């Protein structure tokens, strides 16, 4: 991997982030909506102060958030703040910063998405490889088919169905939220179990919703490998089926599947956000949803930008580890 390649990819990453930041900055300013005025009007409705004050308050708010400066100056302030990791202040939960809100929520999201993505990647690829493998027992191969059919169903809908059948009808698992109401988070075993019970359905929804895609792409890949000369050679050489399966089938499909994982990152994050909303989990999706409901624009833009940066960075980072997975890949 040459140093020039690394530099080029990192410059590309900055380009993506800059374009995203610029889109997020300019789109809301094209609209006629004024978030500050709206927020103050909302406060006036609930707090009951005279509308006459609002104009002065809008002016002072605008000054405070720097919204009275010319647009270009605001833009440079914004990009400058971004470079220092400053995503601004929440309009709804002022004076908390957007970064603080994100940091509160991110562990929940990260834990859920990490576990479900890894599990569905492993399960899906194994099932798909088995389905493509002519030596696999028949029942195992048909076992993969229902998962392919699940492939078009988004995890959120899977979540609604699971809520209905498992939580509502069978009453086997709780109907959402992170832990039982009235329980104070602590380090006891019973709380840990409670927490786990609340995470099973969202995790299941995410896994069932994404496993089919892996089965499908892995099966397609496995079919092309079958009949390759090197597989025939390995068979004639007398290698056991387990060795061929592991070292010839799985090994050679790893790289395209990891590429698929990178491409799926955006989908994973998006599904995660919406599933959290359905199950009322306190992650980044719920924070985003609250910000949407409360017209907390600065938080919406902050979260969107944060996720964009995270996803784009991960995409570039995975490219760097390709050579480790496949020695034939050399970045130049």
């Amino acid at each position, binding site marked *: 991997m040459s140093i020039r390649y690394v530099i080029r990819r990192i410059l590309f990453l900055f380009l993506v982030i800059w374009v995203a930041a610029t889109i*997020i900055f300019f789109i809301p300013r094209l609209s006629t909506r004024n978030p500050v005025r709206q927020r103050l009007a909302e406060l006036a409705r609930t707090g009951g102060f005279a509308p006459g004050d609002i104009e002065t308050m809008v002016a002072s708010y605008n000054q405070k958030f720097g919204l009275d400066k010319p647009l270009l100056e605001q833009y440079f302030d914004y990009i400058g703040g971004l470079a220092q990791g400053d995503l601004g202040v929440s309009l709804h939960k002022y004076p908390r910063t957007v970064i603080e809100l994100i940091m509160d929520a991110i562990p929940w999201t990260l834990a859920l998405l990490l576990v479900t993505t890894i599990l569905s990647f492993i399960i899906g690829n194994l099932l798909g490889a088995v389905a493509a493998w002519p030596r696999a027992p028949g029942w195992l191969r048909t076992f993969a088919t229902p998962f392919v059919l699940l492939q078009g169903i*988004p995890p959120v809908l899977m979540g609604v169905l699971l*809520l209905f059948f498992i939580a*509502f009808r069978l009453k086997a698992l709780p*109907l*959402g939220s992170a832990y039982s109401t009235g329980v104070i988070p602590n380090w006891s075993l019973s709380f840990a179990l409670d927490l786990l019970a609340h995470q099973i359905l969202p995790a299941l929804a995410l896994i069932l919703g994404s496993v089919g895609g892996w089965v499908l792409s892995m099966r397609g890949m496995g079919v092309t490998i079958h009949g390759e000369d090197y597989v025939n050679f390995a068979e004639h050489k007398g290698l056991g089926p387990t060795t061929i399966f592991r070292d010839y089938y799985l090994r050679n499909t790893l790289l395209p599947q990891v590429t698929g994982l990178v491409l799926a990152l955006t989908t994973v994050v998006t599904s995660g956000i919406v599933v959290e909303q359905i199950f009322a989990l306190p992650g980044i999706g719920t924070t985003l949803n609250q910000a*949407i*409901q409360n017209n907390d624009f600065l938080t919406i833009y902050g979260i*969107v930008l944060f996720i*964009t940066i995270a996803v784009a960075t991960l995409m570039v980072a995975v490219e760097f580890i390709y050579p480790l997975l496949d020695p034939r890949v050399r970045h130049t």
Partner: protein
Amino acid sequence: MATLAVSQPQIRQPGQVALFFRYLRRNKSLAVGLVILLGLCIFTVYGMLTADLSNAYPLSVKSKQPPSLEYPLGTDFFGRDLYPAMVVGLWQTALIGIVAGGLGTVIGVFLGFIAGYFGGPLDSGIKGICSVLIPIPAFLIQVVIAGSLDKRDVTIFTMAFVVLLLAWMVPTLVIRAQVLTMKERQFVSVAKLSGVGDLGIIFGEMMPNLIPFIVASFVAATFSAVFASFYLAVLGLGPLREPLLGNTIWAAQTQSAFFNGWWWWPMGPAIALVLILGSLALIIMGLDEISNPRVRKKE
């Protein structure tokens, strides 16, 4: 061509329709997908002709009624009859999908041909823009756009527009890749040598051969448009007054429908969406078999 002297009645060619059905028998996923989609269409058309669609809006019927003979799908907390709400929701979902997916494909075909056929700086420009935009999670940008709109102004067509803004990159890249390989094929060179103009080659020679890909990318674009508009609606960014399927699920969720035992409220739209997205996914798989002969099954 006409040198074979076989009298016509001896070789009875099956008609186009018969061939189509014969093909469907082999291509199971395409057949099942089309049947489900057809069923949904019949349900929607039948509903639009028979049901009182004004009951799909709040405060028109008794609220919170479970499914019964009078209300086949029940009624919701706001006093909507969920059966007409489902009919209208299906129609609107289809509308968003077809408008955004169709326009996305048209733009994709246009840009893909320009980039792939003419090449040069235009090609690197279009490809560069696509590759910078693709890593940005389109859905989140759509959240920002939909969030900046005044909620009272949001209609079905604004939804379609928001979805469309980021729905053209994938079709562009798909069509561009196909054009690039097709440009080198012999029949294109022959056409070029015999003096056919660029437009003649594009519309006369290449476009007819790309129809399977264009149809496939139209279905794929429709699928992602339905998907995106559903996700936006689940976050409460849809046109709030309309009984769009995703809106209904969002409304049920904000009123804690399952906690309150109103299970029929989110279930109807959820099943409808499973059927729509599932059938589109099956059709995409089936079309993949046509346009990608590698995975085509042997007869």
